[in-house]
């Protein structure tokens, strides 16, 4: 009686293991979709602040676990946590500083028209010709600061994008309307 049970259970285990092995080989999911998925989530401005020469190499590195999910400064906390949940890993968000959105602006008094800045701008947001004062298209600026690094006269400064009446949103209600907890 016992032998019947032992034999049948062993056979069952063998059969199931075989099915799993076959599935692992023939139903394997390609890992490449992960890279393009991550690349879609990244800002796509190829600013290079992460140290990689663009968003696709950075996506590859993150997908293969070679880089942290926190390497993208423009993405901030929200991107880091989204990537972490996509990859199913824990991430320490305390080090990620959410910089407020910024845009660059040329101080016209000190611009010498050297053209170094618009050559490095990843979105061609700076207009101006040689020996002419340059200007930044605010809407096209991603805040990557590449231009600030190369400007010889330091006439490019970063300004915080101000909240206007049209971009203002309601803050979260203050749950501390409850009196603060008494230290137990």
């Amino acid at each position: 009686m016992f032998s019947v049970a032992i034999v049948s259970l062993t056979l069952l285990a063998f059969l199931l293991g075989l099915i799993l092995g076959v599935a692992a080989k023939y139903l394997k999911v390609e890992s490449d979709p992960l890279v393009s998925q991550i690349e879609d989530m990244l800002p796509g401005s190829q600013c290079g602040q992460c140290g990689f020469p663009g968003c696709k190499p950075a996506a590859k590195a993150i997908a293969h676990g070679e880089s942290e999910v926190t390497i993208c400064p423009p993405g901030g906390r929200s991107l880091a946590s989204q990537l972490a949940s996509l990859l199913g890993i824990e991430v320490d968000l305390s080090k990620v500083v959410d910089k407020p959105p910024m845009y660059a602006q040329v101080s016209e008094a000190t611009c010498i028209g050297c053209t170094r800045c618009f050559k490095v701008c990843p979105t061609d947001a700076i207009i101006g010709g040689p020996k002419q004062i340059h200007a930044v298209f605010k809407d096209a600026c991603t805040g990557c600061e590449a231009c600030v690094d190369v400007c010889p006269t330091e006439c490019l400064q970063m300004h915080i994008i101000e909240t206007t009446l049209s971009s203002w949103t309601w803050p979260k209600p203050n749950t501390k309307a409850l009196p603060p907890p008494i230290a137990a």
Partner: protein
Amino acid sequence: MKLFRFKGGVHPEANKIATGCKSITPFPIPDRLYLSVQQHIGAPAKTEVEIGQHVLKGELLAASQGMISAPIHAPTSGVVVDITEHTAPHPSGLPVRMIVIEPDGKDTWTKLDKIEQPFSLTPEEIAARVGEAGIVGLGGATFPSAVKLNLGKDNKIYTLIINGGECEPYLTCDDQLMRHRAEGIVDGIRLMLHGLQAPRALIAIEDNKPTAIKAMQKACEDIESIDVVVIPNLYPMGSEKQMIHLLTGMDIPAGKRSTDIGVLVHNVGTAYAVHRAIRYGEPLVSRIVTIGGKAIREPQNIDVPLGTLVSDLIEFCGGYKEKAERVLMGGPMMGQALPTTDVPIVKGSSGIIALTAKEIEQQQMMPCIRCGSCVNVCPCGLLPLEMANRARKGDIEGAQEFGLMDCISCGSCSYVCPSHIPLVQYFNYSKGIVASQQKEKTHQNEIRLLAQQRTERIEREKIAKAEAAAKRKAAREAKKAQKARELTS
């Protein structure tokens, strides 16, 4: 007429007795008028005047920009003394561009384009004139009325509903307008019907306004196409969605507009403004505002020139007789708390209500006890407790799944919550996140496109350079060969 009751709704204390019987008081011209360029939904108006310019009453100050916009006109004659950023009548306290006028006291109208036979105008002309007069939805939504009238072209409108509900407590401006200017309103309705080519209009008035009902019935008794409908007193009866359901039994399908089911809703104040604009050529330069609340000494309804400061109005009403805990622009359910009274009246200001702490009844916020009172009163069939709990945890997608974007922010749920949870603020906060996420996405797509274009441009330049270099090389080779041949020949 058969009415189709909707589920939910609340009965806040009306508190309309203090101003209900007070007739419309004219307001003396104040010292300064602040005209905001953003008094409507859509793109802000573009300033067309300069500092120091003298303007007459009704003269264009700022022109509309684009499809959805409205112009601003001078409420009285005077000199433009400043064009500057001033605090907007908005809870954030952020500034907005305003044109400041110092009245000269003469109140002279500019040349007005009166029409003797307005019904000989084509519907397009009527819509154009309404747009030029700067008329927007005076119920508080401030949507440009000309755009709404033009919607009649794409969809056949079978019923025009004129909203005389005024379900918000304290407000009596529409009530007074209907009592005293009924003929003007009815004339405006007839003009709108002509502009929309619609066969019929219904004027919906809540049953707590018997005098207004009588006045309106008398004004339209000889007109076949216009009828007065008495509707029950319930909040939020004046909301477009609920009113359409009540009168026609149809819901506005999700994601669609009311014109898709052949109905259009306009406020009584808008109808009156259309009457003044088409017949008398007067642009929108003033409106009736209810100054109320127990903190005000002499509450009343005032015909206010646009741009008057709220502080001036309160002073005119005798100032405060009790400490005002909050001053609201609008009614207590959906009105905005003003950060300061140094803000002007705009086209959408139906009331200035100064509430005492006792009237606000704010108590300590407690955890949600899942009592379901909010579910019972929600007029849109939502589950406010589920949405708010998810919003509190930051799960905005979860809140959207429960119908966040279908919420009309009427405030019925917060009104009844026994734990005094600020439900509407959770929904406003979540909607703000959704809106900024969408803006962020569009912006990111644009940035991506720009970056791509740059890469392509650099590629093109590289290829062009290579081609040019190759060409030059070929030319040099050819010249060398040519020279060599010359030498040998």
